């Protein structure tokens, strides 16, 4: 079952990869949290921490990066049944933003930690044959 309002609400992140960035970190909470200037949040956050006067600005995350770790999902959740086995990885984009995404357009035996990747827009899920189609980001090798 698709949660249509929550899918729709995440549109800026799913379709346009929007996050935000701390352009001036003024956290008064010395050493108790990991705030730092330049930090990119994806999805965007309201605050680094409650004791911050940090300046957060909207940004679009970098669409190229590298693969930090990955797995090949052999036993998938029901809605991904037709796609298994599929590769899923954690990527660090060039601006430091991190995301979990499927890695597609690559033979499963060619996956490698550190490989360059870039975001492509893909269909992620569908609510059966009659419900809504759900889109977002996957990554492909950036060669």
């Amino acid at each position, binding site marked *: 079952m698709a949660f249509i309002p*929550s899918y729709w609400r*995440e549109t800026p*992140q799913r379709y346009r990869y929007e996050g935000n960035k701390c352009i001036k970190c003024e956290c008064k909470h010395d050493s108790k949290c*990991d705030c730092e200037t330049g930090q990119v949040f994806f*999805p965007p956050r309201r605050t680094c921490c409650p004791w911050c006067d940090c300046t957060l600005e909207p940004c679009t995350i970098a669409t190229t990066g590298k693969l*930090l*770790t*990955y*797995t*090949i*999902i*052999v*036993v*998938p*959740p*029901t809605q*991904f049944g037709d*796609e298994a*086995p*599929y590769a*899923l*990885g*954690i*990527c660090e984009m060039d601006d430091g933003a*991190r*995301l*979990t*995404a*499927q890695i597609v357009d690559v033979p499963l035996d060619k996956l490698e*930690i550190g490989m360059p990747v870039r975001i492509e827009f893909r269909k*992620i*899920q569908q609510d059966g044959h009659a419900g809504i189609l*759900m889109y*977002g980001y*996957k990554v492909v090798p950036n060669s």
Partner: protein
Amino acid sequence: MRDVAVIGIGIQKWGELWERSLRDLWVEAALNAINDAGVDHIDSMYVGCMSGGLFVGQEHLSSLLADYLGVCPVPATRVESACASGGMALRSGFIEVASGLSDIVLVSGVEKMTDVDGGGATYALATAADAEYEVYQGATFPGLYAMVARDYMHRYGLTREQLAQVAVKNHDNGVLNPHAQFPMKMSLETVMNSTMIADPLRLMDCSPITDGAAAAILCPLEMARDLSKNPPIKVSGMGAATDRIALHDRPDFCEFRATVKAAEAAYKMAGVGPDEIDFAEVHDCFTIAELCVIEALGFFARGTAGQATAAGETARDGKKPINTSGGLKSKGHPVGATGIGQIHELVTQLRGTAGERQVAGVKRGLAQNMGGSGGSTVCHILEVV
């Protein structure tokens, strides 16, 4: 703050318990704990349950379970922190007794996971991850821990064999546990040749789907000997912590920071260090989790837990016995009940009543119960007084 003791424990044999419902399972464990302690009333109760709603379509467990135990109008609270729900229920009960608000508190955990099919269970468990940014993309729990395992192997040269040894060792222990869901030995070959679930994790790297409940009775240490004939087991240390919910937001995938912080707090409260812990029950939801956890607890240096496990250091006769109960792997993992199930094992060992799996001379044990991919953790240190 008053010192708190465990004076009663209750459980049943865990497994696919088709004949019994969530309320049946829980009431059975709760009655076992009450009878074990021999108390004639309780003042309050806590129930840890991850997802009554998704697994059996039932929320409001406080009322349901107090009702079916026959203890209304005793106040009851359901506690949720994914797979750490049981341990967090103990923490809540501990605080209530320590504060002086109540004297006799039942703490418990329950999960009835087999009323839904495999897809339903996978879905329910996945809600412990970031639904919008991990699960939406196709992540599963085995998948998240598989990414930890891949990173660990890449960085520390952990071998597939070393990883499999965790499962072999835990099944060796589970064989001796009458409550274990899968009390059978598991050869290295069986683990390494089992069905691939999320590369590099195979079926025998994963804890099973389990129905089960566990309960314990807490009271102030000073009243323990008056209330129960059981030797009081003191809860000497407690700590809980959180970490970023999404695995990708953690700087180091192999460092379970919530466990590090929870353990630090527990050690501090108990006034001991990792070397003074005789044995531990840890959250081996996947083989890789046990390795990362026993490093986070300070038992082994980073990157060495695989070798230590292969060398038998975590076996019952090793220098730091881990998961003498069989762990989540062999004993089973009814998610909300697991944290209290661990307490059941600590108390059993500390009372010296663990039978064939008894570790000789243990005085102090640690339980580490973890939610999600490490987003929440609670640690308790229990000791003989």
